[in-house]
């Protein structure tokens, strides 16, 4: 028992998730025909993984809970996931558990080598999860996602080497531990590591892979990939920016602003829900990157934002799950026959993403704008404000059709996932102060 008690909380979660994976793998043959039992095992593993983390600090709790929420929604959608080969549900469930493991490790790692391993675990699971979607499009997208992830990961490994050269350890960078003769090597190393993390956030120069993955993967699985990646990346970047504000903060602000502009214009051109969500995620990632560069207040705002954003995006993808991997044009949201629950879920998600009060998306945006104003002043805040309010122009477009839903469609509706994510969004909308207090605590201030 002593040995178990001495395991740090995040590793306890990791252990439980890997055990869950092994159980699923051992029972693969039986489980492939009973998706409900499979999802139950997965959900239990994820809930179990959340328990040990409750003993950790606030940041651990927030990040593990966020990842677990992503995993839960993904797992609840496994029975209805649109797979190329429908006997592959056990593999999918196992990969969701392992991807959650990677995300937890990335967010809570004690040193950078573990973080890199977590990142790679998450990347590889994500690429395979995307690839397993039905049709040729997911495979194509997964390959691109994989190659571009590998480039940024190679950059991260190189940065790890430079950081070791500069500081002699894999510890998270902290101001004041580097020899001035190495300061440039240290700078390059930190930047490369930051870029490796930034790929998961899908910001400007590293946006293509995630864009394709979010557009073409099976909705439930793409939602998981997106949510787990975002929360882990934001937490990791927050730690990096806390310890290495000098090269990271201005870079984060810069790529944040470019991403806001890029994502907004890109999303404005879309006439299809999936790709609109994919592009808009770039704009939102830009907001988060901007906030991450704005000191402790900004980092708290970014964590607050990412928790809300992740739950909202999970709701959106859960609502679209089960209707294929192809595009979903605005005009067809009705014709495709989303059930009433799902239409309501998608509506709520779109309202929150667009930042219509009193949905939580509005509070999250306000927090970031406030942090940006206190740290950066008028002009960057103006860009963020415009990027933020322009969201209504693309997020709300499908709404008149969506709300005009007249007939319910009978399908294997992923109602539990929609209810779960929807309830989370509603609660966050009604109690924004609580979530922000947690984020503030997590960032340590």
């Amino acid at each position, binding site marked *: 028992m002593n040995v178990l008690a001495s395991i740090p909380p995040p590793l306890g979660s990791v252990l439980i998730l*890997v055990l869950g994976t092994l159980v699923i793998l051992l029972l693969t043959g039986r489980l492939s025909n009973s998706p409900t039992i499979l999802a139950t095992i997965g959900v239990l593993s994820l809930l179990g993984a959340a328990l040990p983390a409750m003993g950790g600090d606030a940041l651990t709790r927030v990040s593990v809970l966020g990842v677990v929420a992503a995993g839960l929604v993904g797992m609840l959608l496994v029975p209805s996931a649109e797979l190329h*080969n429908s006997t592959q549900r056990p593999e999918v469930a196992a990969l969701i558990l392992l991807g959650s493991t990677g995300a937890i490790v990335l967010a809570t790692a004690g040193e950078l080598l573990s973080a890199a391993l977590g990142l790679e675990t998450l990347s590889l699971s994500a690429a395979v999860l995307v690839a*397993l979607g039905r049709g040729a499009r997911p495979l194509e997208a997964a390959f691109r996602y994989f190659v571009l992830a590998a480039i940024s990961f190679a950059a991260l490994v190189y940065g790890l080497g430079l950081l070791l050269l500069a500081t002699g350890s894999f510890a998270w960078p902290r101001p004041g531990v580097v020899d001035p003769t190495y300061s440039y090597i240290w700078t390059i190393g930190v930047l490369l590591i930051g870029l490796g993390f930034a790929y998961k956030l899908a910001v400007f120069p590293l946006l293509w892979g995630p864009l394709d993955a979010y557009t073409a993967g099976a909705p439930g699985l793409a939602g998981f990939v997106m949510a787990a990646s975002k929360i882990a990346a934001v937490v990791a970047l927050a730690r990096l920016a806390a310890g290495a504000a000098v090269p990271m903060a201005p870079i984060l602000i810069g790529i944040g602003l470019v991403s806001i502009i890029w994502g907004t214009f890109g999303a404005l051109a879309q006439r299809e829900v999936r790709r609109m969500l994919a592009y808009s995620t770039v704009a939102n990632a830009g907001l988060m990157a901007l906030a991450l560069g704005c000191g402790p207040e900004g980092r708290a705002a970014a964590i607050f934002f990412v928790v809300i954003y992740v739950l909202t995006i999970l709701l959106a993808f859960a609502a679209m799950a089960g209707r294929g991997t192809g595009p979903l044009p605005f005009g067809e949201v009705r014709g495709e026959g989303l059930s009433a629950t799902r239409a309501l879920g998608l509506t709520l998600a779109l309202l929150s993403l667009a930042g219509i009060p009193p949905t939580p998306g509005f509070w999250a945006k306000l927090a970031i704008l406030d942090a940006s104003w206190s740290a950066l002043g008028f002009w960057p805040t103006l860009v963020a404000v415009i990027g933020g309010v322009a969201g209504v122009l693309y997020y709300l477009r499908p709404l008149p059709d969506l709300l005009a839903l007249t007939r319910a469609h009978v399908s294997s509706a992923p109602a539990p996932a929609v209810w779960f994510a929807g309830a989370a969004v509603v609660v966050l909308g009604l109690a924004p102060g609580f979530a922000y207090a947690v984020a503030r605590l997590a960032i340590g201030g």
Partner: protein
Amino acid sequence: MNNAFLPIALACAVALVSAVGVILARRPVHAVVALLAHSLCVAALFLIMAADLVALGQVLIYSGAIVVLFLFVVALLPHGGIESVVPTGRVVSAVVAGAALLAALAAGLAVGAPTAPENPAGGVEAIGRSLFGPLIVPFELTAALLLVAIIGAVAIWRRQEPEPGAKASSRAASEGSLAHTADAPGATGRQRLLDEGGPAR
């Protein structure tokens, strides 16, 4: 390390030249051979830097497993995977991007590295102590990563399998794969890859 400057320079030069070979070869087979040469040169550099175990790993894992894996896959490619002629624009953009990255790295690394101490730390025991000491967490985490790799490889391969159902044979025929659907438990991705891909050639 400066007493070994010449071997180091030689190994670096060959590693670079073979790397150029990897990216320029139109025939993947040639690229694989160049990658092998490159990998061996890197192993030599590791050896000179007194990283014996890493050098061994480089030879065993890289040259022995990864490069051979690449070779197998190349053997499965239609027409040996020969590319059509690369358009000039692509070459130019590659040169520009590579040069830009090199310039950026060089700007930061221009201060150069300090000379290493005479007595290198190392040895298998020290590495063992490090892997089971301060680096125990990342070391154990490789287990999860390898699990992903195994499951992923199997899953990607099983993706192509026809589902047990009516259309199984027609789909298999159209996709040019074998019709057997049995999922041998414990089969690694590589084995299954060879099982199904081989006869399709």
